[in-house]
């Protein structure tokens, strides 16, 4: 059964990349939006643009994984093709994991473009191992977050609408453009329950060439968020097919 599931996950990821992700709308949301956002801040204050790069990478992770990922499940539920996947000899969890990994893979491609571009343009020397230690779990966190919101609602547009609130909340409160430590205490507390905070925190440590043990804390917290989003998503999807 494990082999059946792994095979199913692999081909669902490939199929989703082809049918949903590598399309202009997904690419534009995943990469153009974060770039435009960061450019706006750069134009306001051209000094210290390098400090914005962790935020740019974090936003690319957030937007690329949730751009199409957060609507794919609902879309397939509506047209019935998710049922087609569930008729195959694989489990429901494997189907959902395939969807999450599809979004994460697309996010990885977008994030690598932005990260490698930044490294080349600014001549940065980063520890790739630590970088992946933050980027990979973050991709899984936001893909699973998109999947969870997707199965919580019925319509495609509802998922996108519902997603906008936490997405923008995270941009403002997780330290994308404004350090968490400089925020009022109450907002700092709120930022601790937002996963993007740990992505940016981890990236900040890497960009400051000072990963230390804190990066492992960020890594573990991100993995916990991934589990926290994935398990209820599986349960909710199961409920739809109860």
């Amino acid at each position, binding site marked *: *059964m494990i082999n*059946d599931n792994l*095979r*199913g996950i692999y*081909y*669902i990821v490939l*199929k989703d990349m*082809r*049918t*949903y992700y590598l399309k202009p709308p997904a690419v534009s949301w995943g990469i153009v939006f974060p770039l435009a956002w960061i450019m706006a801040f750069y134009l306001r204050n051209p000094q210290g643009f390098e400090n914005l790069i962790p935020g740019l990478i974090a936003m690319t992770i957030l937007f690329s994984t949730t751009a199409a990922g957060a609507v794919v499940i609902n879309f397939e539920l509506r*047209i*019935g*093709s998710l*049922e*087609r*996947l*569930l*008729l*195959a*000899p*694989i*489990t429901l969890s494997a189907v959902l994991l395939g969807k999450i990994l599809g979004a994460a893979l697309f996010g990885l491609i977008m994030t690598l473009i932005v990260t490698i571009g930044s490294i080349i343009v600014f001549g940065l020397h980063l520890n790739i191992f630590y970088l992946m230690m933050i980027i990979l779990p973050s991709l899984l966190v936001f893909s699973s977050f998109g999947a969870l919101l997707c199965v919580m609602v019925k319509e495609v547009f509802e998922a996108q609408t519902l997603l906008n609130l936490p997405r923008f909340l995270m941009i403002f409160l997780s330290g994308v453009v404004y350090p968490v430590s400089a925020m009022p205490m109450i907002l700092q507390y709120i930022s601790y329950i937002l996963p993007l905070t740990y992505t940016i925190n981890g990236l900040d440590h890497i960009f400051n060439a000072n990963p230390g043990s804190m990066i492992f804390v960020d890594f573990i917290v991100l993995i916990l968020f991934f589990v926290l989003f994935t398990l209820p998503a599986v349960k909710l999807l199961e409920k739809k*097919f*109860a």
Partner: protein
Amino acid sequence: MNEEYVIQVSELTKYYDKHLAVDNINFNVKQGEIFGFLGPNGAGKTTTIRMLTGLSKPSKGNASILGFNQHNEIVEVKKHIGVVPERSNLYDELSGLDNLIFIGQLYGVPRHLRRKRAEELLKMFGLYERKDSLFRTYSRGMKRSLTIAAALVHHPKILFLDEPTVGLDVVAARSLRNLINNLKSKGITIFLTTHYLEEADMLCDRVGIIVKGCIIKIDTPNQLKKAIADDSIIECIFTHELSEKQMKMLTKRFSKSRIISKDSQTIHISGGVPNEVYEELTLFAKEQNIQLESINSIKPSLEDAFIKITGLSPIVMAVEKGGKNQ
């Protein structure tokens, strides 16, 4: 497992909240037969298929498919069954060929056989010329054919077809029925649901009649018809379409008989004394100022048997026909 039966269903029950959709049903399907589940919309046909194919969990009871328990061996079950849902649900963004290859990948068809098998099916279903066209550009009949082809990619032993000809034109529906018969001749067991009585009559070796979640009769179409062979059935064809009001008046007038509206001009009346029925019909036509084209005594159809067995009103049947035309 009884070798003769490939599907064994015992006390299968499904509740949606408090609504009882399938009520404690029991039936077996023999190897190589076409078994039809016949009933009006909402009778529980699709719910039963969903439970048997793992898309929905039974509230009670169990089912065994090819000896595998549907509850805890569903992945094994899925390897041996093909399912054609009522809605053609392949991927619009993929071509016909790519859709079949993708399904082959999911089912673990060996890499070197996938394309060959997909092309073989496309040829079998007359879609080879359009193999590279996107699914969304296919006609409804072509989509239906490709959906059935997709269910056959992995050589299933049992094929589940949910309302296979719904939405198809007459030619496509007939072609599909021929194909179903072909699949049977290749040894595939077929479980199909339909509310088209003629379809069940033409295709099925045995028919289970399901109404409001309960199976009320299982037999061969011939045996079901024999059960009302002694009933006299009068077929009356009017020259013009009957209005809904006239249909209701007619139903009221023959309240002691059973009336089936075949279409808006043709009705079947069974259970009455032929001479009295003739006279009453002639009188009705005169009162309503409509012409009778013909009145004949005919052999009972499966539809007549269905009406007698289920006791469903002709209005319900008329709604059924109007709701999902072929």
